[in-house]
């Protein structure tokens, strides 16, 4: 066992070094100074209280998404449809805001209603993918991918159709909500809103607690590792799959609602901002461990925010952050694969 732990560490470190080396090579190939690029990313992520706050703002939806996909991964499902679930969460939240914005309700209650509606939207969209899988025999990857396209189309239709700005529809989204309906921030200048941060931290705490400490989490794990045996042990299998879809959809829905109420204050075409896919990457990178998810999600958020300055300062595209993230996940996964093969070979077939 000790042996396995040390090789895991060596392979983990090796993967990170390889990812950095390749990224460095790519920056050098474009004729830029890698050190300067890394320094710039670090500056852009933690250089001032303002950018650090931006990192946290970006961390919130990512953390929500990761908390959600931990459930679906544990039960053995690839919830690619998470992007669509975020979008539907955002759409439902916008819908609730539009319905209630002119009512006499207190702003706090309107925002709360929007988050609740977001949860409803995310859960419905996730259950749709789950139902397609359970009752229609559609693989959740294909079902989710299809539903993502539908969600995007629905979103665009709303922005350019029924919910378009007065006058002319625009790619910049729907008309922003009144400032009193914005999720309250720490101060006038800051973008950092404590309530969404609290929700995100609660989400990962709930995921950790449910998955690590409860019989429910253990049952999800059993279904994920072997549904046939799990069924024979008396666990209702498809019900657990649906339940984890619903949980994941709920967290994705909150993420969508947060994007609307706290970040953009309106519905925009790319409202999910790729957080779904990034969340899947983070979950894979931490090997589905809830404890490691929070810091790694923070690191990914820092990379994303830090890279925003790159085009201005160094004429490098900000997608460099995605390159680093992609390499990291790829090498860690390859490293895991190689390590398992090596261990299997060493054990042989006794």
């Amino acid at each position: 066992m000790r042996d396995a732990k040390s090789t895991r560490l060596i392979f983990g470190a090796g993967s990170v070094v390889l990812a950095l080396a390749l990224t460095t090579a790519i920056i050098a190939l474009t004729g830029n100074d890698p050190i300067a690029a890394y320094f710039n990313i670090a500056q852009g992520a933690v250089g001032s209280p303002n950018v650090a706050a931006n990192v946290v703002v970006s961390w919130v939806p990512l953390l929500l998404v990761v908390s959600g996909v931990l459930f679906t991964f544990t039960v053995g499902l690839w919830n690619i449809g998470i992007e669509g679930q975020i979008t539907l969460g955002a759409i439902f939240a916008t819908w609730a805001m539009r319905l209630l914005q002119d009512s006499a309700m207190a702003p706090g209650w309107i925002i709360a209603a929007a988050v609740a509606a977001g949860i409803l939207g995310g859960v419905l969209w996730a259950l749709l993918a789950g139902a397609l899988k359970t009752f229609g025999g559609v693989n959740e990857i294909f079902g989710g991918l299809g539903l993502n396209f539908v969600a995007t189309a629905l979103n665009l239709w709303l922005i350019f159709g029924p919910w378009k700005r007065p006058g002319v529809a625009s790619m910049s989204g729907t008309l922003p909500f009144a400032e009193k309906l914005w999720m309250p921030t720490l101060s006038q200048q800051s973008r950092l809103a404590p309530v969404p941060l609290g929700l995100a931290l609660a989400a990962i705490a709930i995921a950790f607690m449910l998955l690590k400490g409860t019989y429910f989490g253990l049952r999800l794990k059993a279904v994920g590792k072997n549904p046939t045996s799990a069924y024979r042990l008396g666990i209702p299998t498809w019900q657990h799959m649906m339940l984890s879809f619903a949980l994941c959809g709920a967290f994705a829905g909150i993420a969508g609602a947060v994007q609307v109420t706290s970040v953009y204050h309106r519905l925009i075409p790319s409202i999910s901002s790729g957080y779904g896919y990034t969340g899947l990457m983070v979950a894979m990178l931490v090997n589905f461990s809830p404890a490691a998810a929070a810091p790694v999600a923070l690191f990914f958020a820092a990379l994303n925010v830090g890279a925003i300055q790159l085009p201005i300062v160094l004429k490098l595209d900000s997608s460099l952050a995605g390159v680093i993230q992609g390499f990291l996940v790829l090498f860690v996964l390859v490293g895991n694969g190689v390590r398992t093969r090596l261990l299997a070979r060493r054990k042989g077939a006794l």
Partner: protein
Amino acid sequence: MNIELRGITKRFGAVLANDAISLAVPPAAIQGILGENGAGKSTLMKVFSGFIQPDSGQILFDGEPIHVASPADAIRLGIGMLHQDPLDFPPFQVIDDFLLGRPGGLIPDRKRALREFRDLSARFDFSLSPEARVASLTVGERQQLEILRLLWLGAKVLILDEPTTGISQAQKEKLFAALRKLAAGGMTVFFVSHKLEDVRALCGRAAVLRQGALVGEMDAPFDDGRLVRMMFGKEVPLAEKTRSSPGKKVLTVKTGAIDSLRLRVKDVNLEVRAGETIGIAGMEGSGQDLFLRACGGLVEPAGGQFCLDEDERPMNGSTYHDYMRSGVTYLPAARLEKGLVPGLSLSEHYALAEKPRGVFIDRAAAAIRSAERIATYNIKGRPDSAVESLSGGNQQRALLSLLPKEASLILVEHPTRGLDIESTIYIWGKLKERCASGTAILFISSDLDEILQYSDKVLVFFAGSVSPPIAAESLNVRRLGELIGGIGWETLKEADRA
């Protein structure tokens, strides 16, 4: 060809799987390799056939050292290995599977292959259709296909790893006849088994492995007692045959019918009473597995009535979970695929099986309970051991230890398939303990001795037809073997009925 294995040593971590094993085999011999599970038989044969490389030691053909670097190398050198689960391609047609692995040539010569396939089949009296799908064959037929393929590829040495597991009596006889013919033609056969009777019936000589070492060799005729002592270090007597006194009705099947793509089972009538053990015999694929699953709601019956308990509560259309709530449990033969969850520890399995109250897992209490069960069932493992790290016998014990305390009926597929004698006796001891406290057992097995030894009544399946329950005392291996093969059904008179 003289074959010599000289000083073969192989270590896996802390385990010395083969400890300087030396064995010389003369030409045209059928060499038995005996030993219980984990004795090192498979490792030795995998070294011989190039699947794994030894840490030290040599293989010599007629005194010349050879180097077997891979299975492909092995077959080039004329060493063919038949694995316990035949390595074939279920979606393929028999002839394509046969052709595969033939070196050279971009376009396979199917016509020639077909001709040679037919010639070879005829020589060994195998009746395989070259057009059939491999997936539609029984384990025994897949073995036959694999043997033909290896011979066609030019095997001069044939290694068979536990080939009699999961095949019918008739197929076994056919297999043995083919092997004798091959040996008579000058081929060397290595026959790996833990079944003494098979080695006694087939082999001219036997080598016994225990804990990685070669503990002895013997030529036919064998002294069974000495072989058992060599295998286990002591003689293990079979448990006294016990008869139960049946209690209340547990399961009633009236004119039960089950449909599958290949088979229709119909007119099954059976009454299982508390404390009874009923064995189901039949060639693999005769419908007995479908029937057993239907008795637990894992297969939807096509007709008839499946009822539980004294009041004959109808269960048609119920799920396995409904059956479970009524005290029915199913023990599958594919332990890691359908019974246990690889990746979870023993202790986690107990936590899942117990359906405890509360939301949070009480790890401390779970560890104590696990330790108790591990001790009770004599499982070689710790509460945090992953189930896939256990040996087959210990996995079966783990499955048994997961059974609910209050089971009214246990359905078992091949209770001791692939297990050594000690584990077999242990498993049946535990099952019979359950019977004594009123649990009924319905099991299928391809081991006729097992059926006769442990059943009160026997049900025979033949191509979808089902016999009435027959009292086990009125049967012997020969009569049962004939019934399984479809012989003597017309004389199944009232006298045989239980």
